[in-house]
């Protein structure tokens, strides 16, 4: 079956521009996660959606970052006024439910380069 898909696979943007990254989770998965992978910081959690509950935004590094999940499926991560330190691979994951009993399946990521 189809896994987690992300688009675009690569994005190059100029400093100060806004970008939107898209995640299509596995059908039927109620939990969706965004992580960021960078050379200096490793893999770090950004935000977590579980069903209709309020999202856990505790990992967002600044108020320039936001995410939404429409209809309990597709999610968009938006970065406003991008900075060079935002350059990283942004990974989306989904799981059937939240919690340790359910494996998180990762997408291939979007590589963001801010010039």
């Amino acid at each position: 079956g189809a896994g987690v898909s992300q688009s675009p696979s690569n994005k190059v943007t100029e400093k100060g521009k806004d970008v939107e990254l898209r995640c299509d989770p596995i059908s039927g998965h109620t939990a969706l996660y965004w992580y960021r992978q960078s050379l200096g910081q490793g893999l770090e959690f950004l935000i977590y959606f579980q069903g209709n509950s309020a999202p856990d935004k505790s990992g967002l590094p600044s108020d320039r970052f936001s995410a939404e999940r429409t209809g309990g499926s597709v999610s968009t991560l938006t970065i406003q006024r991008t900075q060079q330190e935002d350059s990283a691979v942004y990974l989306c994951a989904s799981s059937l439910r939240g919690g340790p009993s359910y494996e998180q399946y990762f997408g291939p990521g979007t590589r963001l380069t801010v010039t």
Partner: protein
Amino acid sequence: QQQVKQSPQSLIVQKGGISIINCAYENTAFDYFPWYQQFPGKGPALLIAIRPDVSEKKEGRFTISFNKSAKQFSLHIMDSQPGDSATYFCAVLGGSSGDKLTFGTGTRLAVRP
């Protein structure tokens, strides 16, 4: 505060050898300890995971050893193959961190033919 410390940063092993990667954690409330494997250009994929109620879990050539009192867990890859060459991440989940994974810094494994 780094919640998960992973070592070594990189590892070179000969084909057929044993690869060992270690992780140490701080919070005793964590209750799920997975290892992820990542190939270049791909997202991480779950390799094997363990709960704190057992000390060892084996799946094929991959084994997790878990030491609750020492707050350490390790990944052993037996009969390492060139196809195992990848980056490996340990992670923890649970406690105050809820459902989000906290990852170690990664180990780049190269298995030489």
